[in-house]
């Protein structure tokens, strides 16, 4: 299955490589600054572009959470500095309700889509797929480049929405109509909402261009000997992620288009029987269904959770196995459970809608299917546990984050069993229990997967190591902080405390957690500061980090470590290596590791 022949067109560089590989060593192609760093078609550079953009977005999104945690922790205090910085949005040094809702909306949108979708799978799918399957680049490097630039365009539009006079979108990251459809119902539903929708549409285009590329690359461009069942689990996870994205993002897109029609073309897809207090007028729209949008949204929205989580699972599997010096336990079961999660991801969306008036009988199917996801999830957890059992564990920063990922996935996954059960969801829906659940399982866990990936593959990306001491500080404060922030929130949720409230002082039922809210806010700020430390470590190490001196610093089996320390466009000098075995022969027959490129010996034991 060599892919030499499939590379043509844009990849002249690569062809040159193949012909002249003896005398040239990577620095023969005349690349300008623009083609190398800006409009690059090298998957590794595009991956770094996604990562850097993702980091910038993560800082912005994280800063938003610090701002609204300030309000939640200190609802009765004023911060004059905020007024200086934010003007009318923090009049009198107090975050205004409109702005509070804009902050939570943008925090959600940015982190779910721009950081944990584009920043996570954009980075690692681009970086790892060609390197780990043994390909010189993506199936279409040009489309791949477009994928990044559509993301960039989406980012620009989303950023610009922060500066419109009526403020950015503020109807929650889910943007339920009619609130999001009517400018008269909320300031944020004016120009800010249009920009939000357009940015998200661009984002969908980016995801589709990327996803189609990932799938076709994995299916068609594996090197000789790299059968599907020899792929590292990272690739399997990224493959299913791409499939999920391709099948579900278009549905979201259609939902957004209908919303745009309702906003500007006078249609009534989502609108019916509305009288607005702000204008004292009844709208002409009749017969629409606000619930239709929720179905369209969650048809993406739920798979989106797995689009975020699967790459983290894949990377954690790979990193746990490598640093346990032991094969991943139950490789086929891991693939099967990824597949089961992928299929089930499409069949559970309505569990977000148990209290919308959904037919209870229909709801019962969604309960069953939702709780069914716990089975493949449990398989994965037990397989990870067995992978580290009787291993020889090296606690590299990547390994620590992978272990943290498993811990968080267990904690957050178990609370999913509460929420997926419609009976409990009646009480817990839209409370802090939900906030705690999805932040742990989708937010922090995926971030841990991402950090694990960054620490593990940074040497491959930049030929240098991140500073270990900073990495350990980063890991420990983030892990402890994440639990301190989100664990107590479960209790607030059990008390029925609703999310998206900026001040609980008017409520006798929810006001007993003032001290806790303050505590959570303080921890949030500390954790945020430590993330900045990581960002600093990232950029510092990029230029000044300890150099990688060996080709395979982690003693890893996968193909990316058979390239040069700083691979050029085309990845391998000379022939692409042939693969003879699966990726997890660690500790076999008394050998520490056996690279995928090593032929199976005659006297080797079978597994």
């Amino acid at each position, binding site marked *: 299955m060599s892919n030499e022949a499939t590379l043509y067109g844009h990849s002249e560089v690569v062809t040159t490589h193949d012909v002249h590989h003896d005398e040239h060593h990577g620095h023969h192609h005349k690349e300008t600054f623009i083609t190398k760093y800006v409009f690059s078609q090298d998957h590794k550079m595009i991956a770094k572009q996604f990562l850097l953009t993702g980091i910038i977005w993560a800082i912005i999104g994280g800063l938003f959470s610090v701002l609204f945690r300030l309000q939640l922790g200190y609802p009765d205090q004023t*911060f004059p500095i905020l007024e200086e910085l934010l003007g009318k949005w923090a009049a009198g040094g107090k975050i205004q*309700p409109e702005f509070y*809702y804009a902050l939570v909306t943008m925090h959600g949108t940015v982190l779910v889509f721009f950081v944990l979708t584009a920043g996570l799978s954009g980075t690692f799918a681009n970086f790892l797929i060609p390197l780990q399957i043994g390909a010189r680049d993506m199936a279409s490097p040009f489309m791949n480049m477009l994928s990044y630039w559509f993301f960039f365009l989406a980012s620009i539009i989303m950023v610009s929405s922060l500066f419109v006079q009526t403020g950015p979108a503020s109807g929650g990251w889910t943007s*339920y109509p009619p609130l999001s459809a009517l400018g008269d119902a*909320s*300031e944020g539903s004016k120009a800010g909402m249009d920009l939000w929708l357009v940015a998200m549409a661009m984002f969908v285009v980016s995801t589709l261009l990327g996803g189609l590329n990932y799938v076709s690359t994995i299916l068609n461009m594996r090197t000789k000997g790299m059968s599907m069942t020899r792929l590292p689990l990272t690739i399997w996870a990224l493959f299913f992620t791409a499939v999920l994205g391709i099948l579900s993002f278009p549905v979201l897109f259609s939902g957004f288009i209908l919303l745009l029609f309702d906003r500007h073309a006078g249609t009534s897809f989502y609108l*019916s029987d*509305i*009288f607005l*207090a702000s204008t004292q007028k*009844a709208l002409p729209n009749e*017969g629409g269904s*606000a619930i239709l949008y929720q179905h369209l949204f969650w048809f993406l929205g739920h798979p989106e959770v797995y689009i975020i989580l699967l790459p983290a699972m894949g990377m954690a599997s790979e990193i746990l196995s490598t640093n346990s010096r*032991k094969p991943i*336990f*139950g*490789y086929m*079961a891991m693939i099967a459970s990824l597949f089961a999660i992928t299929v089930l991801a499409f069949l559970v969306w309505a569990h977000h809608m148990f209290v919308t008036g959904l037919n*209870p009988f229909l709801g019962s199917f969604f*309960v069953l299917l939702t*709780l*069914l996801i*716990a*089975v493949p999830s*449990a398989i994965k957890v037990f397989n990870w*546990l*067995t992978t580290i*059992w*009787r*291993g*020889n*564990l*090296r*606690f590299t920063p990547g390994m620590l984050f992978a272990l943290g990922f498993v*811990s968080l996935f*267990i*904690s957050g996954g*178990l609370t999913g069993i509460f929420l997926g059960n*419609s*009976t*409990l969801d*009646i*009480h817990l*829906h*839209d409370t802090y229990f939900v906030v705690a659940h999805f932040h742990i399982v989708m937010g922090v866990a995926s971030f841990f997967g991402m950090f694990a990936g960054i620490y593990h593959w940074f040497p491959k990306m930049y030929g240098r190591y991140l500073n*270990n001491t*900073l990495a350990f500080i980063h890991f*420990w404060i983030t892990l402890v902080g994440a639990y301190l922030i989100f*664990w*107590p929130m479960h*209790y607030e949720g*059990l008390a029925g405390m609703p999310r998206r409230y900026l001040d609980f002082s*008017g*409520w*006798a039922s929810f006001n007993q957690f003032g001290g806790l809210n303050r505590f959570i806010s303080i921890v949030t700020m500390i954790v945020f500061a430590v993330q900045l*430390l990581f960002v600093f470590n990232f950029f510092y190490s990029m230029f000044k980090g*300890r150099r990688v001196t060996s080709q395979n610093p982690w003693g890893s089996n996968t193909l990316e470590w058979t390239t040069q320390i700083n691979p050029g466009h085309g990845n391998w000098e000379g022939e692409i290596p042939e693969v003879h075995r699966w990726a997890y022969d*660690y*500790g*076999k027959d008394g050998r520490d590791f056996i690279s995928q490129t090593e032929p199976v010996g005659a006297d080797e034991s079978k597994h």
Partner: protein
Amino acid sequence: MSTLLIIAILLLGFIVVFQIAKASEYVSVLKGEKKTFEQNNRINGFLLLAFMILGLIGVYWCNELFKGRILGEAASDHGEKIDTMLYITIALTGVVFVITQILLFYFAFKYQHSEKRKAYYFPHDNRLEVLWTVVPAIALTILVGFGLFYWFKITGDPPKDATVVEVTGKQFGWVFRYPGKDKVFGKKYYKNIDEGKSNQLGLIWDDQAAHDDVVTNEALYLVVNKPVKIIINSRDVVHDLGLVHFRMKMDAVPGTPTTMWFTPKFTTAEMKEKTGNPDFEYEISCDQMCGKGHYSMKGIVKVVSAAEYALWLAKQKPNYVMVFPDKDPAAKPAVTDSTATAAVDNKKSLSN
């Protein structure tokens, strides 16, 4: 000024941490990479174990701290079912949580790198894999079984004798409507809404059934131990009728009425005693993002005895009468039943 100070301290902290980190890198070069690795590995291995132990103590401590603040006794029959389900789920997931977290961190600590140990080549074991497919499947079947059993009870049809009340959400408040003596809600149409003319729900006055409908923003009055069916509407955007003490919740969707039913168990007065809080009120929260006033969209539920309820209802003027005061039947002298008399007396005392 203090902000600048904080920023300065932060920066200083950053620089200190960074210098230490850089120095540690030099030290590791001096000591040799292998030795540094082994030292770091031991420290992290120990920390992982410490994190697990302190973490589990923390979980226990957190529970002790907050268990008194989370769930008072459920104030409705459905709430009791939901609480039972909650405890079943907590018990089951709690066991899994403790076991898996202990295994994870204990394995990490126990099998940390050692020169002497060789990793055990153990790629798969079908029996184990079947075991942890089947056991979770059984556990989940139990949870689904209990869950759906309660779910159908809660969402099933309300008893025939249930009181019917209509609640409508709007930015940012709640409107309550009672059908009046005829027990039939009059027809309404949203384009008839006219707050200037006190018709906040858009009732159609041509419909006789609407004439005795009582519309109020004051509170949702319910009778204790009597099932109530609530028809939920919204006038503008999606809201959610959240009744935390009753553990009930249902979205209010414009154009699509939804329903819920339950039986309140304690009157507001009883709850005042139970909680020891003389100001106790059942609060209605909006649980679906509805705009800038979402966090303040509060309503009150008053659970009262049947007699108090009848008295209260009798005192209420139908919306129709408020709009057309000249058509007030109570203004006419022909009154026979006692509650109505009470209402008239009350009105007199108010007007005096």
